[in-house]
């Protein structure tokens, strides 16, 4: 990253030092207390977005982690006499462990949809509150921290808490910036849009979600630890109330949950406007207003304030046009040594339907094997088994000396298996360039996001999509989407490419250019498994053809041989035509 690219981080540091200097110079206690609350909300809202904003798994359990932190500090300082500052890391670690533990249970539920995750995390708060209330941690009456000594970072106690809150807010927002610009952030964005495809592109989705959840919960835990000292009297009712989960969701959504600075902006706006409504009936009114704003923002400004403002700014001051890449030659990139793909006796059933019955085939480097067969014969299922999306019931798939079966899909992608999808599945909220960059980052190449974008530009030039680099996928036509699938598969530096009906729906001119492209890919020594209904293209491109019917290989050999085999003619045209 260039020095100019890091400017936001520098700005954050300067702002942090500025606020610290303000406190050292002597700020009235009222302002220290007011600003402390804003810092605390900034840390909470920003940390919430690590998982919920970037990866789209909305958690209503942030209050539980905040509460876990509060009670860690409260229990350790009052019962065991641990110094306050020493409890803060412990509060963070405990909350992070809690988050990772919950994640390890719920993320294993296949196809756990977003709203179900939201409800489960909402339940976590109630469960934790019940446990705390029924055990010695609280037991009912609440915990007083007024006798716990507060270290003197500044002359006044509020000044000390102000500095701690400030430090946590700066570190959290800085971490958000780093995450958004790292592999983790790109992977989380990809998970947000299409988790299955992300996994197939090589994103280790389970561990990324767990890391994000643990980081998010950990920050909330530290914030809770500090806050326990700020309120100095901790009760179950206040700690685990719905306030924290409600406000963090609102602040992040208001500011823009997918932007690193969005939650901080939202937190500042809401926390300062809440300060107007304090005490008794006014607080009730304030909460209702906040809820009303939440509804209006979600309905009218779904992506949040910061992204909306940025979009307006970009329209007002258009960026200089990006220089187009040179000729559409394939980029020169190092690829792992070529290897043969082999399926040995692969079986797979779905309920009572036997989709694959002992399929064996091999694709050598630089070879194109056409895989044909009627609809429902098991072609796409085979591709899904090879790419690790389905585990076979029996049999194995190897690439060179590596066994692919029993590996999660992201490891298969990392070993050099690229694929396209029959119906294109781009990441809807990422630009065309970033769609390809995801594959370049997480595929066999393993580039940093910055290198990956440079590489992705070359692959876009190769597939003729360089003019659409900054567009979002919904702006592409079918032909462009199919080529985006190809560019994405190539950017992963594959040793094997599985092409699932790339030609269907294209017009003759587009088919001709696609065929040229596939020939160029073959020339690079990539093994290609080519699933296609367009028999003319299969005959033109394939070195060998394998014919599937009802999950079985019924013919294999040179294109002419295979297509003339008696069983094949029978399957395609009926018995009468077998001459």
């Amino acid at each position, binding site marked *: 990253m260039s020095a100019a690219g890091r400017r936001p981080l520098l700005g954050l540091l300067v702002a942090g030092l500025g606020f610290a200097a303000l406190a050292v110079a002597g700020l009235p206690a009222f302002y220290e207390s007011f600003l402390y609350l804003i810092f605390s909300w900034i840390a909470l809202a920003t940390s919430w977005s690590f998982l919920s904003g970037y990866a789209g798994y*909305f958690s209503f359990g942030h209050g539980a982690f905040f509460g876990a932190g509060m009670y860690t500090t409260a229990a350790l300082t009052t019962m065991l006499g641990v110094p306050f500052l020493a409890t803060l890391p412990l509060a963070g670690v405990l909350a992070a462990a809690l988050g990772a533990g919950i994640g390890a*249970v*719920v993320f*294993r*539920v*296949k*196809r*756990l*949809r*977003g*709203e*179900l995750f*939201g*409800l*489960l995390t*909402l*339940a976590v708060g*109630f*469960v934790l509150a*019940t*446990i705390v*209330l*029924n055990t010695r941690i609280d037991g009912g009456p609440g915990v007083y921290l007024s006798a716990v000594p507060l270290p003197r970072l500044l002359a006044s106690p509020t000044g000390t808490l102000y500095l701690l809150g400030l430090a946590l807010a700066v570190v959290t927002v800085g971490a958000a910036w780093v995450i958004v610009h790292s592999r983790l952030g790109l992977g989380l964005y990809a998970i947000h849009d299409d988790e299955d495809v992300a996994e197939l592109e090589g994103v280790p989705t389970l561990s990324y979600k767990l890391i994000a959840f643990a980081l998010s919960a950990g920050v909330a835990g530290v914030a809770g630890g500090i806050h326990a000292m700020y309120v100095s009297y901790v009760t179950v009712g206040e700690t685990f109330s*719905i306030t924290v989960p*409600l406000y963090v*969701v609102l602040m992040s*959504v208001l500011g823009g949950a997918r932007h690193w600075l969005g939650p901080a902006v939202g937190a500042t706006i809401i926390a300062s406007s809440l300060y107007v409504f304090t005490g008794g*009936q006014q607080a*009730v*009114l304030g*909460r*209702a207003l*906040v*809820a*009303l704003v*939440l*509804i209006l923002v*979600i*309905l009218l400004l*779904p992506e949040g304030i910061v992204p909306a403002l940025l979009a307006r700014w970009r329209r007002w001051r258009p960026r200089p046009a990006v220089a187009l890449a040179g000729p559409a030659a394939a980029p020169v990139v190092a690829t792992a040594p070529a290897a043969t793909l082999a399926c040995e006796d692969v079986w797979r059933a779905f309920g009572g339907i036997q989709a694959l019955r002992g399929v064996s085939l091999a694709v050598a480097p630089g070879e194109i094997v056409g895989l044909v067969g009627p609809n429902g014969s098991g072609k796409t299922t085979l591709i899904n088994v090879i790419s690790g999306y389905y585990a076979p019931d029996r049999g194995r798939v190897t690439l060179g000396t590596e066994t692919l079966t029993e590996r999660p899909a992201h490891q298969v992608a990392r070993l050099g298996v690229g694929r396209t999808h029959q119906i294109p599945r781009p990441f809807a909220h990422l630009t065309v360039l970033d769609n390809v960059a995801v594959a370049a980052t997480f595929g066999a190449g393993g580039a940093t996001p910055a290198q990956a974008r440079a590489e992705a530009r070359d692959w876009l030039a190769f597939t003729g999509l360089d003019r659409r680099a900054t567009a979002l996928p919904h702006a592409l036509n079918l032909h462009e989407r199919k080529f985006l699938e190809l560019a994405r598969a190539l950017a992963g530096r594959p040793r094997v490419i599985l092409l699932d009906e790339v030609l269907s729906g294209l017009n003759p001119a587009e088919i001709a250019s696609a065929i040229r492209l596939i020939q160029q890919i073959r020339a690079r020594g990539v093994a290609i498994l080519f699933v296609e209904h367009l028999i003319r293209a299969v005959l033109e491109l394939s070195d060998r053809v394998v014919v599937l019917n009802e999950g079985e290989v019924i013919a294999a050999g040179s294109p002419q041989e295979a297509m003339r085999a008696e069983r094949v003619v029978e399957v395609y045209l009926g018995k009468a035509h077998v001459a």
Partner: protein
Amino acid sequence: MPSLTLLGQALVSGLLAGGIYGLLALGLSLSWGLLRLVNLAHFALALLGAYLTYQLGATFHMPPWLAALAIVPAFFGLGVALHAVFTYFRVTEFTSLLVTFGITVIIESVIQWVWTADYRRYETAWATASLRVGPLFVPTLELLACLTAAVLALATWAWLRFTYVGKALRASAEDPAIAAAFGVNHRAQGFLLSGVSAAYAGIAGAFIALIATLAPSQIWAWIGVVFAVVIIGGLANPIGALLGGLLVGVSESVTMAVAAPAWAPLVSFSLLILILILRPGRV
């Protein structure tokens, strides 16, 4: 180990409490399963219905059944209006959760503003009436609530199963585009279902007013339990919602009898998590 009588009493009160859970779960299960909208505001509506019943009874001396008769059509209208907002803004399954979360907080604030956060108790002559079956006591009102839940669940099941509107609703939930191609008017039916679901919240509210002590924060205590019931029962399955409610109710009250009352909230979540791990395809 508690005595058999105590366990039997726990079973009875669990079944009766489960009836209320089932009644609350019914409307939620319908709108989640058939309209793909997760309506958190359902709980807030039920509590609002309870406070209105209380208010009408306490100040105007209106009998609860008459109050319910006024509340149910009003809530039907409210449900229709809510659905109009959802369709106008094309609210998805996920954003519906956020929007109705906001609506819930607003209704909670309104309740707190009007009736304050203090506990309210609707004193009626029937509140203490109960039948005696051998050594066990069966509170009449709770029995009535449980029976109402059973009747509504059966009626809803029959409605979905045997009438054109019911079949059309299920078809639209499976595939709106294909259903529309066969002439199903998904929009109109969405309004109807949303209204019915809100009306159920009103009925549940009337019973809650008679049986329970009211406080605004009650909304949040129900959410976890009733969502567990909905998922255990299966989406858009009225009979399942009722049975799920009874199961959760009984497990809770037996836990209270065997362990301590304060541990009861853990029961439904443990059941929920168990179901999710054992039967992940449930939702």
